[in-house]
């Protein structure tokens, strides 16, 4: 999943990024409301983690602005303000969830996962595509019960394709999933990642699940089995 954290506390945003990266997500950071708003409107994210008391533009304004511009990204408000009216204001303005600092990291991760699944219209934490099973909570992909040992980049691409199975996903979208805003994109990184995924799948006799549509992108077909 691609996640944006808009948080003014350096430590919080840095360590939340570490935690979310450990969970296999691609994370972008913004230290104030203005930069955060620019990121949210310029790129497609699955989840935005938004603080309220932000420099330049406060979190409520960012949220209202995004919803006004028809941005449908799921937003988790993460703030020290625990007053009922603040929580209500956040939720009424269009936030999907609200967490008060200090918080438990496991709970935070779980809530981010839930919002991410919701953005891919998945309710179950386990996504099945043919013989493939993606456990979103355990961060593991297995083929008929045997765990696939995949590096971060390949895991991210395959999990994204599983969440969008039977849909053609462009190379650019996959690049966005594995690279942050400030990272340089390697031209053949998606190709090589897909190649690695295919090899792994072929060892389990299901490489034909992943098809290449020339000029369009990739698609994971749930019914195909070689």
């Amino acid at each position: 999943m691609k996640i944006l954290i808009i948080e003014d506390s350096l430590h919080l945003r840095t360590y939340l990024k570490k935690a979310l990266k450990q969970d296999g997500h691609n994370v972008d950071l913004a230290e104030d409301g203005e930069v955060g708003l620019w990121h949210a409107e310029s790129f497609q994210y699955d989840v935005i983690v938004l603080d309220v008391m932000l420099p330049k533009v406060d979190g409520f304004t960012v949220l209202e602005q995004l919803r006004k511009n028809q941005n449908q990204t799921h937003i988790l408000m993460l703030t020290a303000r625990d007053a009922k009216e603040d929580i209500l204001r956040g939720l009424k303005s269009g936030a999907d969830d609200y967490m008060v600092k200090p918080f438990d990291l496991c709970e935070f991760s779980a809530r981010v996962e839930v919002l991410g699944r919701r953005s891919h219209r998945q309710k179950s934490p386990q996504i099945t595509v043919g013989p493939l099973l993606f456990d979103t909570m355990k961060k593991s992909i297995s083929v008929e019960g045997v765990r696939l040992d995949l590096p971060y980049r390949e895991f991210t691409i395959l999990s994204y394709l599983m969440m969008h199975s039977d849909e053609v996903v462009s190379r650019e979208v996959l690049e966005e999933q594995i690279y942050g805003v400030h990272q340089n994109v390697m031209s053949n990184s998606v190709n090589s990642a897909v190649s690695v995924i295919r090899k792994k799948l072929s060892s389990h006799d299901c490489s034909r699940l992943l098809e290449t549509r020339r000029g369009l992108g990739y698609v994971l077909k749930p019914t195909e089995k070689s």
Partner: protein
Amino acid sequence: MKSIKRSLNLRQAFIQVLIFGMFSFGIYHFVENRLLVEFDHSLETLAYSGAELVEVEKEDGVIEIEVEDDHAPAYDHDSTIFIIRNPAGKILFNPDQVDVENWSLPAVPKKGVDKQNETFPDGRSARSIVMTFMPQIEDGAEYHEGEWSVTVIRERSSIDEALETILWGCLGFGGLALVISLVASYLSVRQGLNPLDEIGVKMMKLEMASLDHRFEVESLPQEIQPIVLKINELFDRINADFLREKRFTSHAAHELRTPLAELQTILQVGQRWRPEDLPESLPSQYFNDGVEVTQRMSRLLETLFLLSREKSETLETACTEFSLVEVLSKQIKTHPQVDRFRFESSARIPVLANQELFIATLTNLLNNAVSHSKGEITVEVEGGEQSVAVLVKNMAPELTKDDLVYMREPFWRKESSHSNHDHLGLGLNLVESFCRSQSWVLDFSLNQENEFCVKVSGISKVNGDFEVR
């Protein structure tokens, strides 16, 4: 429970009963008096007629007294008794044959007319008049025996009946009028107190959270307006206090919760690493960040404790004599951004104050000025006869006059996000606490050019007549 309405109604009822009672009593006695006067007048007329019956004449050289009963006045013999007595008290005229043996006649006054109530032998109430008189004396006659008396007694049932009618009239109409008056008074009191009732009902309906409610004053009676104005003012103050408290809670929550969240996240992210996967450089980075956060929290707690010590009056406030200018110069010279300060003073200016608190005050003010401005900072000393003031001035283009109101609030910062961890937003609070403990006065001002000035005045000069807490 005391009730204005009940108290007013009771008082009104008491006063009205008193007035109506006195009025009825007065009318009754006035009419009784008038009737008796008229009645007595008719008895008197009859008595005068009777007096004219007695004549003294000289016949054949002999003086004779006779009662001309042929000329007796006409009267109702059933209800009136007419008696003439000579000076010796002997009844000489008793046309109705009153049995004087069994009934004592009214006594004869020495002179003049005596009127009184009587009772006939058969029990009927009556009114009597006894009048003394000198008989008519013919020419040549001489009379020296004294005054005769005429007694007229008449039944007074007509008067009593009239008085009874009047009494019942007074009781009936007076009672009715009293009831009407009481009802009118009750309604009037109720209507008069309606605005109070309405305010009471509105206040009862107020919820604890509805502090922004204000009562409409213009439509209220002028007697209640000052009360309602005061209530509105009270609401304003409570609301302002509530909002201040809310801001404080919100800011305090942010200041305390954010570092806690940081610390918890650092530790929990660290926990996720399996020992065998842990890079060598990672623990030290986690520890350093954790220590930095705890140091920030520690600084916050220390400041809060300091504020709390001032409030509980356990702050050390003992005063010593020192040179204000020397201390001030030293603080400026040792400041990391000494080049930004402009301070000129040659006088020594000895003051009596707690030197530590003075230095702490000064440090906070100088640091604030350095952090929140970019240009030159002017420090001035204003000397008075008994006290001296220190002024710190700097340009603050982002500050507004409205901000001056909030500056004394804990955790207040111009930047609402509170992202800058170099400051806690408690500096001016601390300065104010120190000033309060030393009886100094802290003032903020912002001039037209947006030059912000903090003034600490009331620092006692040694040669002055000063008072130190």
